[in-house]
């Protein structure tokens, strides 16, 4: 059971047998549900490794000012120096300490990864809830808008927009956040369509609860699981997106350090072939961060979907 990849909904081999005996009092159900997902998640070894690695990167990002050996923007006399005791990963062509830049780069990846996804999950939830719950022309309008946004190749339109409004950490987080919502909106709408037919929702309507209360307190909590999985993979893709934009010079720009812009120097063939310490460490950090998040997402999906297959 070490590795499982199940991008599709129906996962026959995971039909849970252990869960059948847990039809307990409804009041305790939520507790049990979380507990069950947790237990299944912890069985997924790679997902646990992913959590540990991601937490480490998060810690590096938070503690960057404390643990960084140097100021990441400080320019030293020795440029393009090979790794030494003073500069563990050498210095870049401008004379900045690569190790310190690597540590501060974690902040950028974490900010964009979590910030952008938080923005688009919020937008997607609201639009999806509204479209699914009200139906009719509102649904039609929101879904066609979703189609329009989905027709643009995601990376390309982000690249063009960022280049127009100006590259910066804030702007790329905002742009990825403002454009990433269509998948979440579709997902939420689909869940709402089935949940709104449930008796407890009808009971809420009959009791005269306000529509926002029904939407956010009754329907949304029951649609959260797939959103969580999608958002996790979204973090991975936002991290790659930021790195790619910064690599192309359209993201975080020097002197600010980002793993993506540290690799820009390797476009010069001399740096690429004779100074691998300049570009391999940041590249590996991106790979590590993205892999860890993808493992977490995979573990979450397995845990949640096997629960639903009950």
């Amino acid at each position, binding site marked *: *059971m*070490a*590795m499982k*990849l*199940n*991008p*599709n909904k*129906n*996962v*026959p*081999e995971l039909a849970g047998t252990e869960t059948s005996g847990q039809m307990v009092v409804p009041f305790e159900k939520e507790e049990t549900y979380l507990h069950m997902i947790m237990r299944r998640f912890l069985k997924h070894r790679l997902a646990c490794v992913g959590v540990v690695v991601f937490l480490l990167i998060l810690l590096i990002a938070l503690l960057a000012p404390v643990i960084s050996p140097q100021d990441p923007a400080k320019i030293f006399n020795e440029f393009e120096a090979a790794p030494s005791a003073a500069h563990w990963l050498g210095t870049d062509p401008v004379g900045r300490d690569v190790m310190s830049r690597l540590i501060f780069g974690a902040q950028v990846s974490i900010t964009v990864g979590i910030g952008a996804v938080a923005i688009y999950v919020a937008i997607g939830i609201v639009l999806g809830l509204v479209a699914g719950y009200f139906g009719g022309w509102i649904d039609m309008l929101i879904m*066609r*808008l979703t*189609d*329009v*946004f*989905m*027709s*643009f*190749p*995601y*990376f*390309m*339109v982000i*690249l*063009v*927009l960022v*280049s*127009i*409004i100006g590259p910066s950490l804030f702007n790329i987080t905002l742009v990825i956040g403002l454009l990433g919502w269509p998948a979440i909106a579709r997902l939420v709408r689909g869940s709402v369509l089935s949940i709104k037919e449930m008796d407890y929702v009808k009971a809420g309507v009959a009791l005269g609860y306000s529509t926002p209360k029904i939407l956010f307190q009754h329907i949304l909590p029951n649609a959260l699981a797939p959103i969580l999985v999608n958002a996790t993979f979204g973090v*991975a893709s936002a991290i*790659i997106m930021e*790195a*790619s934009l910064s*690599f*192309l010079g*359209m993201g975080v720009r020097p002197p600010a350090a980002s793993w*993506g812009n540290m*690799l820009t120097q*390797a*476009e010069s*063939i001399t740096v*690429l*072939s004779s100074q*691998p310490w300049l*570009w391999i460490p940041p*590249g590996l950090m*991106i*790979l590590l961060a*993205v*892999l860890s998040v*993808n*493992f977490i997402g*995979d573990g979450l999906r397995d845990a949640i979907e096997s629960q639903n297959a009950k």
Partner: protein
Amino acid sequence: MLQYIIRRILIAIPVLFGVTVLNFLIINLAPGNPVDMMVNPSATPAQLAATKHALGLDQPVWVQYWNWLVQLLHGNLGFSYSTREPVTQILMAHVGPTVLLMGVSLIVGYLIAIPLGIICARKQNSWIDYIVTGFSFFGISVPHFFLGLGVIYVFASKLLWFPTGSMNTLGGDGSFIDTFNHLVLPVLVLATGIGGNMVRYVRSSMLDVLGKDYLRTAKAKGLSQFLITNKHALRNSLIPIITVIGIDIPLLIGGAIVTEQVFQWPGLGLLTIQSITSRDYSTLMAINLLAACTVLFANLLTDILYAVADPRIRYD
């Protein structure tokens, strides 16, 4: 069937219209004015105003949009702000290399991923399953530029097997072998991402189908394992895969921009970066529109293909 196809096409029309509006709005966010960049810095305000008027830039945004749309429907994409050439002509010069790169990558990626996905599903939890799954995680997680730089470092810089970039040797004969040599590394990069994604879908789709009752029946009536896997199971498991192709196209376009930049491949991706650098918004708008239409068309095509392959979908 025909009714479904017609309905699907009719839905695509307002979406296409929305795409043109959004595209126009995005480019109109651009600060400054193309006229400021086009004319001589010593031009008088009157000359500036005259140029603006000639280009229709003094009119309200919606009038500008309408003019642009009418021109677009006549097949006129305007002139490049930086080189003054017709945009259509510039696009034509760059479409070929991109289609070649993306097409070959898609085919290579699928040809490797589909058999591997089937093997993984057949031998679930075996060592080969773990290895392939590990590679697929690598494929979906590694940024194109890092993998690109990595393969240049190993295969071009150290081993000298392949050139570091471009599409043909400068001053070379431009022969098929020459292009092929230049194509290998960028295709390797793009196919890794495409294949890594595809393996996961094929594997899970195949696992899904292998658990179905009709396959148990096929086994029970004594069909060979070969026939069961490659005829009964494969056919049914490939149907959901059709939608993956629709998902892959936008990803491929994004990947191609970065990959073309790393390998200096003279396609639309490189043109995009050049247009951004030179603030050539008319070219940028055309590339963006072309990319969006490609995605829209690919989605339309996969939806219709899906409906043809699986009649149940039409009742949804």
